[in-house]
């Protein structure tokens, strides 16, 4: 049977790249000297999977390289090796090398072996560095021992096989052998496949019928194999059960046809019974090389070459960059797709039956069926579109490394905070937004955040902060890159713009308009072109990329306090996790990310602040209450008494408040539909969605709702901690 292994390569590469990301972010999170076993375990597991997969799919160089990393990680995991920053750095670099190897293999390009070799040397240096640690390494020592003893013993057996014409095998399974899932008869069957056998069954151990336990095994066997096979072949058969039986493998010499004239090597001719453990050890030693060396040279090269041949056309057809041919999909999404197809099939067969003998009396039924078909088709379409939705973490995940590397390179201290990584965006956005974001983050690092001493002098914390924030707002995806650095220098931009001929004079440009000049072609404010933020090809290209996605880019800046780049991308098919709430007869969806908690308000928590509206005390803070029924003019709420309904504590734009609602319904994923398609924006909402019963529910936009509420009632929002 031949199976084309190339068909699994794409999946292998995808999960391996994910594994590399896990390793990378894990390594970035590791502190020298401390060994968080969970963290290291996850890194180890990723390396282990890559190694195993690479070996299986024939990428031997990747497998070999990863093996060294795995060994190092294994030692760290077991606490046999200290986690040093040196080791972390070497491992991080190795992740890069591995990524290079993987990309090259995937694209059918040459791997840069020099780079791989030198990194391998680095890894080996680390491995060798702590002599005591490695010497105590029991697992490794054992493995190495096996490997070394193998060649020594193998010729021994083959040398004696000349005179051997067969084997006598004593096989005395322990009574518990069945409970290991091993069937002794299978062993005998396999032995018989090696050649002609005579089998003698010893039933002496069989208990009386009254003591008979079917779960225990009571038979012993003696098998005479009349074939001059290698002892290894026999050892292989017993490989799994050596601990579950007593056994002996005795060679039968050529001249003699007698039973046990054991002239073979002493190690392999040990009688059964008490010495079995020794024999088992010998068997282990000899069976090992079979398991290890055999598969590698004989069968592995075949798939390896097949892999290379197959990888090339695949890489070509997949498109040059990013190879975005396939997509990994949450199985839940697939399940819902399958359900929908099921419904579609039912509808189709219903319509089919209707068509068989149709007359006008059944026209209503037909219409019903058609509208059902229509609905299902639409749902199917939506679900298929949903498959394209991926969390933006796919894009964000590269930034911790970027910030780590660049900030240490520049001698800056920077903390990166990422918010809303779970925000789902279309795959196209994921693919296209990466480069612009890298550029913007680099800009923040390079131009925004000051050197630590400058920060301290300016009275700021030494460590600068860059935030990457993704969210859904009003049917848009909003991605913000915020920093608390020095902000844009209005005058510098202006003079530069005039110098570069971007504008002729300042005219009466507002600050914002001046800031936006940096998006003009050929603009660079860096005094020197640095290798971090590149050479001024940046911002205009960034803006063009965003525009191509149908989005827009804005800039906010406060001198000395930082700046923010705000990217808005349209999203006709965004999906969000929502909580349904009920107010009167109306159902609304609150984005789950906005919800902090839900509480039943007790009278003593309530507080009327003069001129500031209703508030309630939640732990140490007084939070304003927004009465949904009032703000949205819902006519018949179940209750207008705060203590009788529920307060959903929500947060938006850094402010918290309690939404007074009647009750909570379920949580579900909803597809955001624009109200603007046929109507216009509705204050307090970010759009609408279609519920399971086909009805429409509005999706609340919490910050917008707070603004709306402020117009209705005197509310003072407190900055949440």
């Amino acid at each position, binding site marked *: 049977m031949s199976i084309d292994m190339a068909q699994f390569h794409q999946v292998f590469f995808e999960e391996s790249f994910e594994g590399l990301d896990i390793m990378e972010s894990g390594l970035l999170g590791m502190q020298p000297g401390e060994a968080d076993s969970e963290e290291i375990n996850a890194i180890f597991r990723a390396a282990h999977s890559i190694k195993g997969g690479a070996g299986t799919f024939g990428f031997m160089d990747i497998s070999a390289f990863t093996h060294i990393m795995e060994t190092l990680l294994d030692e760290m995991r077991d606490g046999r090796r200290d986690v040093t920053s040196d080791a972390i750095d070497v491992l991080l670099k190795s992740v890069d090398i591995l990524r290079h190897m993987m990309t090259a293999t995937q694209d059918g390009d040459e791997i840069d072996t020099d780079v791989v070799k030198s990194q391998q040397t680095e890894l080996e240096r680390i491995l060798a560095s702590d002599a005591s640690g490695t010497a105590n390494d029991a697992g490794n020592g054992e493995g190495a021992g096996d490997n070394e003893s193998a060649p020594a013993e193998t010729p021994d057996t083959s040398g004696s096989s000349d005179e051997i014409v067969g084997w006598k095998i004593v096989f005395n399974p322990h009574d518990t052998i069945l409970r290991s899932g091993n069937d002794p008869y299978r062993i005998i069957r396999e032995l018989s496949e090696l050649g002609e056998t005579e089998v003698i069954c010893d039933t002496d151990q069989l208990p009386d019928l009254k003591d008979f336990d079917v779960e225990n095994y009571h038979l012993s066997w003696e098998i005479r194999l009349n074939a001059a096979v290698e002892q290894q072949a026999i050892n292989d058969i017993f490989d799994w059960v050596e601990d579950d039986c007593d056994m002996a493998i005795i060679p039968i010499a050529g001249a003699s046809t007698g039973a046990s004239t054991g002239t073979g090597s002493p190690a392999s001719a040990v009688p059964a019974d008490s010495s079995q453990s020794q024999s088992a050890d010998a068997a282990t030693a000899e069976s090992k090389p079979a398991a290890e060396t055999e598969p590698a040279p004989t069968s592995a090269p075949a798939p390896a070459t097949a892999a290379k041949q197959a990888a090339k056309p695949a890489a070509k057809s997949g498109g040059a960059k990013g190879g975005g041919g396939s997509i990994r999909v949450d199985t839940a999404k697939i399940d819902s797709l399958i359900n929908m197809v099921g419904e579609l099939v039912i509808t189709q067969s219903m319509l089919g039956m209707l068509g068989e003998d149709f007359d006008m009396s059944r026209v209503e039924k037909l219409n019903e069926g058609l509208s059902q078909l229509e609905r299902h088709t639409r749902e199917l379409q939506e679900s298929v579109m949903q498959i394209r939705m991926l969390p933006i973490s796919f894009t964000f995940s590269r930034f911790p490394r970027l910030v780590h590397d660049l900030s240490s390179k520049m001698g800056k201290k920077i903390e990166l905070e990422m918010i809303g990584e779970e925000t789902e965006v279309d795959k196209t956005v994921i693919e296209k937004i990466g480069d612009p974001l890298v550029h913007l983050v680099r800009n923040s690092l390079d131009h925004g955040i000051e050197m630590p001493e400058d920060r301290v002098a300016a009275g700021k914390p030494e460590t600068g902060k860059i935030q990457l924030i993704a969210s859904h707002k009003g049917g848009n995806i909003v991605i913000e890159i915020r920093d608390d650095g020095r902000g844009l220098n209005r005058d510098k931009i202006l003079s530069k713009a005039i110098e570069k001929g971007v504008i002729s004079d300042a005219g009466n440009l507002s600050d914002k308009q001046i800031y936006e000049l940096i998006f003009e072609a050929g603009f660079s404010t860096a005094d020197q072109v640095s290798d971090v933020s590149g050479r001024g090809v940046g911002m205009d290209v960034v803006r063009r990329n965003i525009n191509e996605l149908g989005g827009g880019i804005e800039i906010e800046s406060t001198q000395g306090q930082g700046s923010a780049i705000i990217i808005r991308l349209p999203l006709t098919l965004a999906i969000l996790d929502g909580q349904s709430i009920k107010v009167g007869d109306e159902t609304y969806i609150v984005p789950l990310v906005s919800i902090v908690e839900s509480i039943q308000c007790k009278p003593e928590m309530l507080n009327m602040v003069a001129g500031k509206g209703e508030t309630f005390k939640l732990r140490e803070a007084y939070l304003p209450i927004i009465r949904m029924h009032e703000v949205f*003019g819902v006519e018949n709420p179940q209750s207008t008494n705060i203590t009788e309904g529920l307060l959903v504590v929500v947060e938006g734009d850094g402010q918290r408040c309690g939404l007074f609602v009647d009750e909570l319904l379920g949580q579900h994923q909803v597809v955001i*539909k624009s109200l603007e*398609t046929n*109507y216009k924006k*509705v204050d*307090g909402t970010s759009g609408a969605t*279609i519920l399971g019963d086909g*009805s429409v529910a509005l999706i609340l936009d919490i910050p917008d709702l707070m603004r709306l509420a402020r*117009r209705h009632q005197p509310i003072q929002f407190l900055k949440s901690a």
Partner: protein
Amino acid sequence: MSAQAAAETGKNKDIDTDKALLDVVGDQYLTFRLADEDYGIDILRVQEIRGWDEVTRLPNAPEFVRGVVNIRGTIVPVYDLRLKFSMPFREYTKNTVVIVIRTETPKGNKSVGVVVDAVADVLHGHLIDITQSPDFGRETMTEAISGLATFEGNMVVLLDVDKLVKDDSDDVDEDEEGNQE
């Protein structure tokens, strides 16, 4: 250019562009009843006719905007034409009809459902006389009227569906939304 003049140019343009089609299909109007009066709209703009179904209310919307419904996966607002034209509200019944029409706006086509008392008939253009519309008194309606027709002695008010929804579906600049209420 006065509002009325704008209405006329809009109408003329429509007639021109639709001419080719009309020559084949014939000029047709769907007529419906609203408080004992007959109104007609260009049948080419009618997407479908549905019975009244519960809508999802929109907060802080004008009274004539009854809410939104889901029509094949898109969210469509539903206007009550009686309320829009400042006529007395009439409770919805099983016979209440929502006509889903396609309107053309500078921002693209938009669908809107209009609640009417009942659908009456389809009028063929060659059977009716169309005259210019006089001032109708009801301001909200006047702008939307594209002409008057007489058919078998009855008067039918022809409406320009684009004008019908003009003020309500256009996006107002975000900052000025507050004035909307």
